[in-house]
């Protein structure tokens, strides 16, 4: 005979709403909208949510947003690409050989002491005001977290696993491919996550300098015309870019680190 477990009394809708995480942001939006309509927040201070939404759709329909987003996106992707390639290469050189470490690590430590943003003027002198200094700035900033995490990851690989593998006669190349790099991967992915976050921060900064296209260009223009609705739209896009980057790393982690006990299904 089965006895059904008495179900908990159905929570009232009010209680459910109060417990969910939606009410506070929604309330803020509503207050903001109401204040804007009541004239408490002038448009040149902050546009109303409804106005922002309308602007967003208008900008998408006119093609203004997609085209400028594409420009910005290209900057991040090329900056990231170059930075990741450099950071990973240097991390491999320093991590896998003592001589490489002696060669590379001091330079990277010096580089670390200089805030990348402070290099912007120098980059403009060197590369002009086109795409190059922006991409260079992103690449340069992204390099370090990848380098440091890969280097530490390689050096932190469990010596006992290395020894176990060596006892089976693996050569140096097999050791790197089967033991050292997979062992350093979790650390490298942490570096990648930092790098993605930094790349978007650097994009914002690089585009503030000067730009004739891109999200930063939209923001600068909007500032000159006190179009707070456009500024807010661009902020939203920046936020979405950051979110997308995070989701990307998470997806990579779930696939690449499937062996980790936390992610392994029982």
């Amino acid at each position, binding site marked *: 005979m089965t006895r059904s477990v008495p179900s908990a009394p159905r929570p009232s809708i009010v209680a459910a709403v109060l417990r969910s995480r939606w009410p506070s942001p929604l309330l803020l939006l509503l207050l903001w909208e109401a204040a804007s309509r009541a004239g408490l927040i002038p448009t040149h201070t902050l546009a109303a949510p409804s106005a922002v939404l309308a602007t967003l759709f208008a900008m998408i329909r006119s093609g203004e947003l997609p085209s400028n987003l594409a420009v910005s996106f290209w900057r991040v992707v090329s900056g990231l690409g170059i930075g990741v390639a450099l950071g990973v290469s240097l991390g491999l050189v320093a991590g896998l050989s003592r001589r490489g470490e002696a060669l590379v690590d001091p330079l990277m430590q010096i580089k670390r002491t200089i805030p990348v943003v402070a290099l912007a003027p120098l980059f403009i002198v060197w590369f002009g005001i086109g795409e190059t200094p922006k991409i260079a700035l992103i690449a340069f900033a992204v390099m370090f977290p990848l380098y440091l995490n890969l280097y530490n990851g390689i050096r932190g690989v469990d010596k*006992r696993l290395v020894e176990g*593998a060596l*006892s089976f006669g*693996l050569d140096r190349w097999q050791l790197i491919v*089967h033991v050292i790099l997979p062992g350093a991967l979790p650390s490298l992915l942490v570096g990648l996550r930092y790098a993605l976050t930094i790349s978007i921060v650097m994009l914002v900064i690089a585009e503030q300098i000067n730009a004739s296209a891109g999200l930063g260009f939209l923001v600068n223009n909007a500032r000159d015309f006190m179009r707070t609705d456009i500024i807010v739209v661009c902020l939203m896009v920046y936020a979405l870019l950051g979110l997308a980057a995070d989701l990307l790393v998470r997806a990579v982690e779930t696939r690449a680190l*499937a*062996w980790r006990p936390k992610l392994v299904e029982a």
Partner: protein
Amino acid sequence: MTVSLFPRVGQIQPVVRLRGFTRAFGETVVIDGLDLDIAPGEFVALLGHSGSGKTTLLRTLANLDQADGQDVTIPSARAVVFQDSRLLPWKRVWKNVVLGLSRRGARKKAEAALAEVGLSHRVDAWPLTLSGGEAQRTALARALVREPQLLLLDEPFAALDALTRLRMHELVLNLWRAHRPAVLLVTHDVDEAIALADRVLVLAEGRFVAEERIEAERGRRTASVRDLRRRLLAHLGVTAPSGSYADAVAGAGAGLLEAAE
């Protein structure tokens, strides 16, 4: 190949041959002028106190420490099983088994080896989901799939519970009978050594202080090894009564049994 039941050094070319082997870390000499021969297919157990240099010796035989300029002969086909299984957590069990082997037919080989240790159902598992005993069995499969001439076991059962250890002993003996590698088993456990080995060595202060050959067949040893057991324990500094572990830790009263012998 002819395998005599109790191969004696000198009759056949030994697979392991050390002469005057010495190993020191800084000032401390851990191994001091050691001679060792292991015949093909011979099962040798190595006893010794913690810190007596058992692992140091094993590492040399595994070629993990280079013995520059010393008279050391080891076979090219070796395999080690450590106390911790040392499986690569990011490779599935079967890939761990064939680590470093050529890709051709690897899966078949791994499946066969895992079947031998009774792990057919865990072929595709992640190592971190294995139990301690399963991990050690995988490590055994990984060692045997290489058809080693010399199998080195460094306290491979120390971390297992008594029941699992018993099963592992049986498994090791069966595998040894099937593949006939020379085995060097490092252990703290006198009974384990007596149950498994053809020959038991005791290492202390850098030298072998005892060497005992066990002629009695495995499974029929209880009667004939009482004295041997006491001698080995004495070499390890334990004045235990004859008989089993049940009486070994009785403290002051233990002397009674010894007197009765």
